[in-house]
């Protein structure tokens, strides 16, 4: 990068930071004002040792809040999360977890649509044609992802076909060690997907988790066909199992080569029900399939922080824990420590803010987690 490019990038970085600071002040102002905030944060305000309306003047000031505990999201009444300023809007509730006990729930109005409309802008039309129909090869039920993918398809002028997939049952099968049942359930899901693909719906794009994409490709191969032959050209996927090695295998072997050769383009994403989703920078053989995620700032921010001092951002290239912040009018999550770790990455022209690469389960929690739900 020459000096003028560097100067331009630095300007962009500074401008984005100003935007983030202003957006932070505005969002906090909304959530903590008596006329617009939600009951949860208004009640929380009384416990704070500072006045968020006066003392949050920048994004960095959010460190004044204790880390967000996702346990707060368990149980009702769920209306306590609905901002008064949006109380007359139709409300969705999305859940995470819930294999045993009460799941965590998050309310939503339009956030999932906004997030996925913005994400849509990152998809190349060549491989995700406008008007194309979609296959949603992921969890059904009270999940944000199912509606979000459907919105993405609709936003791009297409129709989304879904399968039935209960991830809670999948987790139970794994915990019980019923691996034969797990295998059969996976086949059941893949059968549904192949039925959709073979039913003449002209599906060209799809969402799939790495495991399901892999199983779908292997089953299609078994049946003497392939994703490309089925007409698929664009895929987006996500999760910590979306590793560089898996991507290499998938692109080189399951798809049959990079997009120019195989006709299939796949893009990784990172996110959760609380934050929305982060898109990835370029990921291909030239960079050893390194996957770097950039949050959709200023609506959400990913920071890579020290494992012990979670207010300290690690140096570029260093490893730390993912800390997510959500700043929308519907939902305010200051500094949620995700169960993932990775390396801090430099901003670049397309995303003039920090990114995170090498995402994997947080090593101190990894052994306790059941990874690869579906």
């Amino acid at each position, binding site marked *: 990068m020459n000096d003028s490019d560097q100067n331009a990038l630095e300007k962009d970085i500074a401008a984005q930071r100003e935007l983030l600071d202003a957006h932070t002040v505005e969002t906090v102002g909304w959530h903590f004002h008596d006329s617009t905030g939600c009951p949860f944060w208004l009640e929380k305000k009384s416990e704070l040792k500072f006045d968020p309306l006066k003392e949050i003047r920048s994004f960095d000031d959010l460190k004044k809040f204790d880390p967000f505990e996702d346990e707060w999201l368990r149980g009702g009444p769920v209306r306590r999360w609905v901002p008064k300023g949006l109380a007359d809007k139709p409300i969705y509730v999305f859940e995470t977890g819930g294999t045993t006990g009460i799941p965590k729930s998050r309310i939503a109005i339009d956030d999932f649509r906004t997030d996925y409309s913005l994400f849509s802008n990152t998809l190349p039309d060549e491989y995700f044609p406008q008007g194309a129909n979609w296959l949603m090869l992921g969890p059904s039920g009270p999940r944000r992802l199912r509606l979000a993918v459907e919105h993405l398809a609709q936003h791009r002028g297409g129709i989304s076909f879904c399968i039935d997939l209960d991830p809670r049952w999948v987790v139970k099968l794994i915990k019980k*060690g019923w*691996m034969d049942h797990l*295998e059969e359930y996976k086949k059941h899901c893949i059968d549904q997907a192949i039925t959709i693909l073979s039913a003449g719906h002209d599906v060209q794009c799809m969402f799939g988790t790495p495991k399901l994409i*892999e199983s779908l490709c*292997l089953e299609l*191969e*078994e049946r003497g066909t392939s994703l490309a032959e089925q007409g698929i050209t664009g895929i987006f996927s996500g999760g910590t199992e979306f*590793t*560089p*090695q*898996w991507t*290499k*295998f*998938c692109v080189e*072997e*399951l798809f049959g080569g990079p997009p120019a050769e195989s006709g299939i383009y796949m893009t990784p994403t990172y996110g959760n029900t609380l934050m929305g989703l982060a898109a990835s920078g370029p990921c291909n053989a030239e960079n*050893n*399939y390194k996957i770097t995620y950039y949050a959709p700032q200023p609506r959400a921010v990913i920071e890579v922080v020290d494992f012990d001092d979670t207010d300290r951002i690690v140096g570029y290239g260093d490893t730390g824990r993912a800390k997510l912040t959500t700043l929308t009018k519907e939902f305010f999550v200051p500094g949620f420590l995700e169960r993932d770790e990775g390396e801090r990455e430099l901003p670049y022209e397309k995303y003039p803010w920090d990114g995170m690469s090498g995402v994997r389960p947080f090593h101190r929690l990894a052994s306790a987690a059941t990874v690869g739900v579906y």
Partner: protein
Amino acid sequence: MIELPAIRWGEPYQSLDVDEVVHFYTGEPVARVHTVGTGIIRRDAKKAKRARQALLAMSPAELIEKCKAAGELFESGTLAVGDSQQSPEDFIQQQSATTGMPISMCQANVVKNAFVLKNIDQILDCLTRGLSLDILARGYGEEGRGVTVSYQAQCDALGAVLPSNSPGVHTLWLPVIALQMGLVLKPGSSEPWTPYRVFAAMVEAGIPREAFCLYPGAGADIGGAILASCRRSMIFGGPQTIEQYSGNPKVQVHGPGFSKILLGDDCVDDWQQYIDLMADSVYRNGGRSCINCSSIYASRHTQEIAEALAKKLGPIDVLPPDDPNAGLAAFTIEGAAAAIWAALEQDIDDPQTTHMTAEYGDRLVEKPPVAYLRPVVLHCDSPEAPAANKEYMFPAVSVVQCPQEKMLSAISSTLVGTAITNDENFRRDLIASLDIDRLNFGPIPTSQLDWLQPHEGNLIEFLYRSRALQIAP
């Protein structure tokens, strides 16, 4: 440091996921192994037929000659392993470094594995009960009584999820190549050495490389994918693994052996004659094998036997791995030795149980980051004592007082049973017992295997099914 790529039907595969295999004591990396995900294993499994075809292109006689040559190379050749040339000395050093096993034990296992390869013709002759391998290769033939016999191969390649703790068990899958079936191996996470060296030796000897897959790494998913995608597999593990796969016709599961020595009433008064045999059965190979003796049953003299064994085994101490007298292996998983010792202490608390090696010093020896357990001899007043039929991964034995007529109902599962008796009635009962797998009559150490005998089920019966085949005249 040596770089070990995954092997996919003979072709090295550079993965972006690399695990380090480290020195058991210093933590220094000794090898970098390229690990793959389950998708690669499942996809490769679809090509297993090619492995079999490549092996079927050679006659069984040719393959046997090449296996014998591979045995020589495995034992004494310098071979291209991963990205380096590996001498027999390098191999032993590397194996000892990552597993914590003494050099002498590693050497003994080299001899054992090489023996099987060098004598593969005799071993197969015994496993097949003299059936011509050409009949297995062709699928049918005449056995010599004017009767057509036919055997269906049950798989194109055998999957094997291998352990890290006992390089001797590799003898179980070594005959597979000569049976014209490929191998899909998951080496133990700290012992990739034997499978890679066998692969190198076999390829050097002229066996088609496309017969082999090696998927190293620590991931539990790898083993699961191998078992799910191979029609026949073997796996090594603990009681949980045994329970999980018990009754699954696709999986041969190898776990704890609970091997025993039974002294008949007619011989027990001469117990002193057998004390060396008993000690050897407990201690050989660091007491880590399923064929090591974990219980000794006798109706009388048990206290004296236990005392004499304690006198022999109790003083054995931890020695550096390169000491030729070293006989104890390190527990490299943090906390494992302490947990085992805690379990033993619970057993010792039982009023029917006496710890006979107590006077020979502490059994648990912590040398962070590893730990050792010195030999333990317990005396149990009856088979009801909790320690009577336990097995641990170090030299530990319970000498159990039990009337001869109750022994066979008390011993439960026994991989190797050495019965020192000339009592014909007792011998008949021993033969009839379904609890004993390998039966030795007379003073044969449990750890002394005759390789010409089947082990935990006949490999041929696992890989081939006898079926009818009629040919029109």
